[in-house]
């Protein structure tokens, strides 16, 4: 009997298990969809697996998404950085062109406003020490440039031609201590000699101690030197001191910014100096 049972054990077990499952199914159907205690128990046993699956899934999914996002952000960041660099360069170029255009427009206005033959020139070099006492422009004798021709900007007098090579010329600015220009105070018509002081200022000499000069007075060319046309701005009075003898020493701040001098106007022919201000 025992031998028979052992031999038939798989069949018996199969029968028991199948009956058990059928019983579960029928109980479920009878309970009209409500879960039995056994089903609840099995679900409770399975729920940790479900939670683990969800946790692992979310973790993997989140990590992957963040990784992909991070790669995307890095790539986007690099691309935007390159774009910003390119745009900054373009903006810089545009700003440069805008400023150049403005300067050229001012020069054009000046050229149209003066009754002389003029020539636009570009500053291509300064003194070896970086000062603006002598500057070189890209126009020379081939363009009609000659010695002692005045050089202007829309803001005022720059200087005069002291050397004219075929393709370039040297301009002695009014900052040069060896330069000299006849000037007058626009408000009171007091005359004097404008001499450069080297770096960034000039002084007006031979101004009578009795003359009426005030800080802020505009100094213009008088035309008496036969070089600079009359009435063009040189600068403004910065300070007033005592000169030699019965004279005043008037310090002048030139209107032209010589450190940023780029384009100038060379006056080729003057036919009668007009009383005209460049300002």
């Amino acid at each position: 009997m025992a031998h028979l049972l052992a031999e038939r054990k798989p069949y018996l077990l199969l029968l028991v298990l199948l009956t058990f499952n059928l019983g579960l199914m029928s109980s479920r159907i009878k309970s009209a969809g409500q879960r039995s205690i056994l089903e609840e128990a099995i679900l409770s046993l399975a729920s940790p697996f479900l939670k683990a699956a969800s946790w692992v899934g979310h973790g993997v999914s989140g990590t992957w998404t963040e990784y992909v996002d991070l790669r995307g952000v890095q790539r986007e960041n690099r691309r935007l950085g390159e774009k910003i660099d390119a745009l900054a360069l373009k903006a810089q170029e545009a700003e440069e062109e805008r400023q150049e255009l403005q300067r050229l427009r001012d020069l054009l206005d000046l050229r149209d406003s003066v009754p002389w033959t003029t020539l636009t020139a570009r500053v291509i070099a300064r003194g070896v020490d970086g000062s603006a006492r002598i500057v070189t422009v890209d126009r020379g004798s081939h363009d009609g440039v000659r010695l002692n021709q005045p050089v202007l900007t829309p803001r005022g007098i720059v200087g005069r031609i002291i050397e004219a090579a075929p393709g370039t010329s040297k301009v002695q600015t009014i900052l040069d201590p060896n330069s000299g220009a006849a000037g007058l105070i626009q408000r009171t018509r007091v005359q004097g000699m404008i001499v450069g002081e080297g770096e960034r200022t000039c002084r007006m000499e031979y101004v009578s101690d009795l003359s009426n000069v005030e800080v802020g007075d505009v100094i213009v060319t008088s035309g008496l030197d036969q070089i600079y046309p009359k009435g063009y701005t040189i600068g403004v009075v910065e300070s007033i001191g005592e000169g030699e003898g019965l004279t005043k020493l008037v310090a002048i701040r030139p209107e032209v910014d010589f450190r940023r001098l780029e384009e100038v106007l060379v006056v080729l022919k003057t036919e009668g100096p007009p009383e005209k201000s460049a300002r």
Partner: protein
Amino acid sequence: MKIVRGVVTLGAAALAQSLLSHYGPALAGYCDLFTIVVVYYGLTCPPPAAMMMGTAAGLVEDSLLHSILGMNGFTKTLISYLVGSIGSLFMLNQTIPRFGILFTATILDRLAELGLSVAMGRSLDFPGTLTILQHGLGNGVLGLLFFWVAARLP
């Protein structure tokens, strides 16, 4: 030890099946990891252990799928018994016979499930012959991979 290993295998199958149905529902339609586990135990364990595993796997699958509790338990118990019986008669340790038994077991499982549904008066939702065959093929390939991995585990 064998019981612990069985529980761990069942848990891993439940976890993998859940992940697959959540993140690859299209792929999950072609894979029934519980059937693979049942076939593996049917071929490698004595019939009582295989049948116990079949019932346990079926009940866990029922609880995961929210189907009638006992339905997959019934079919998988039957499958485990049949696989165990066939495994004791034939050599099924080669790739093609293993694929064949996995393929057949998967299709039988689906057909038994459909038959039970009909027997219980539920509406028959026949997925189509091609789908069932695809299911069998997918499970056969995945089952071979499972056998390959299981053979290399300590």
